[in-house]
């Protein structure tokens, strides 16, 4: 597979067939928590895409140029979570100082994603898949887009859910989880498409 094709393949699989939220169960807490309102879904998705791409790039560089030469691969979990935490702080400060409008729309979601498990997962999976630098960045970006897609789609589902009247014991979170099951079922339809498309 050529370079550009591989990028497209990663982009397609991460958004549709291997969607982090609806197929791989990563980042369920923010998925269920933030999807109540459309504007908060969009804000959260933007922040996640931004941080995931940056985190993929930063952790790849640190892993390849610092940890591998020093033989510290076994510390990847500790170092990556600290890198992500520091990065989120740094991004927050930079946005606050220089890009005010972006900070206004993403600001309150940034601290919440330090401990979003999807962000740590994408950095760890980049390493275990032994992606190159560019592939890691595309992977992080695509995983974020997949997260955003799931969030925005599910927000629409929840809007209709508000008008439904489920049995008493299903009210609230249980029926939301049932709706998530149906949403994730639609994503099962993508199974096998990537292999057919990209051979």
């Amino acid at each position, binding site marked *: 597979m050529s370079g550009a094709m591989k990028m497209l393949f990663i982009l397609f699989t991460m958004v549709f067939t291997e969607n982090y939220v609806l197929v791989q169960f990563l980042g369920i807490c923010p998925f269920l928590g933030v999807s109540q309102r459309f504007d908060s879904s969009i804000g959260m998705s933007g922040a996640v895409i931004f941080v995931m791409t940056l985190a993929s790039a930063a952790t790849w560089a640190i892993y390849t140029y610092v940890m591998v030469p020093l033989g510290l691969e076994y510390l990847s*979990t500790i170092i990556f979570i600290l890198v992500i935490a520091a990065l989120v702080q740094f991004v927050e400060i930079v946005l606050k100082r220089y890009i005010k409008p972006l900070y206004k729309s993403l*600001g309150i979601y940034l601290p919440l994603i330090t*401990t979003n498990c999807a962000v740590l997962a994408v950095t760890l999976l980049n390493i275990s898949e032994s992606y190159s630098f560019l592939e890691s960045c595309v992977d992080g970006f695509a995983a974020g887009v997949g997260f955003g897609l799931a969030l925005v789609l599910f927000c629409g589902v929840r809007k209709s859910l508000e008008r439904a009247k489920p049995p008493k*014991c*299903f009210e609230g979170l*249980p029926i939301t989880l049932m709706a998530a099951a149906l949403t994730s079922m639609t994503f099962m339809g993508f199974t096998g498409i990537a292999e057919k498309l990209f051979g």
Partner: protein
Amino acid sequence: MKRKLNILANGIFKENPVLILILGCCSVLAISITVSGALGMGAALTFVLVGANVVISLLRKIIPDKVRIPCYIVVIATFVTIVEMVVEAFLPSLYEALGVFLALIVVNCIVLGRAEMFANKNTVADSFFDGLGMGIGYTVVIVAIAVFRELIGSGTIWGYRIIPEGYQIGIVKQTPGGFFCFGAAMALLVYFMNKKGKKFDPRIGCDGKCGNCGLGCKNQEDNAALLAASDKEAAEV
């Protein structure tokens, strides 16, 4: 002694981390496919919870309040790394089954939540029992869901065939089945609690303590307040 037992029982029943506090649902949904994997995940999480709770409780007077979350994360990540290494060396099949979710215990809301809610203001012994109780509570729920999903989805329990091949409902062990079974388990709990006359309204949230969950979070209110304050500050300048 009675107090310790109360703390233990609190984690298993009254404040069950999965079904009542609704923390750390990612791994519950993902790992509850096989009973053996679920038990391994439960054991790993219990170890990390107990270890992190004890160490954080020991250090609770030393850790400065402002940087406590990064400090907790370092302590938790250390224990997770220990578990990762032990499981990879001695139980390679379990390591394979848990995949990335073993490393993701670092960002599991339960561990960070208990550090913030309990370990940083209670004695070492109490924190030990709190960690143990929460860990057992998590394990009980994830194993119970796994028994159902493995039986219906694969027709086996702990790898032993119970339902003959060809009579399984495969979707139960796939992603939609995970959401469905978790939702059903929660609805069942609400049904029985309502029947006993107790009010229980499950909603997502980490009590504002862990920064992972989205809305309805005290954390977010704080952040919004901070944001408003800094805006005001900027306007004045």
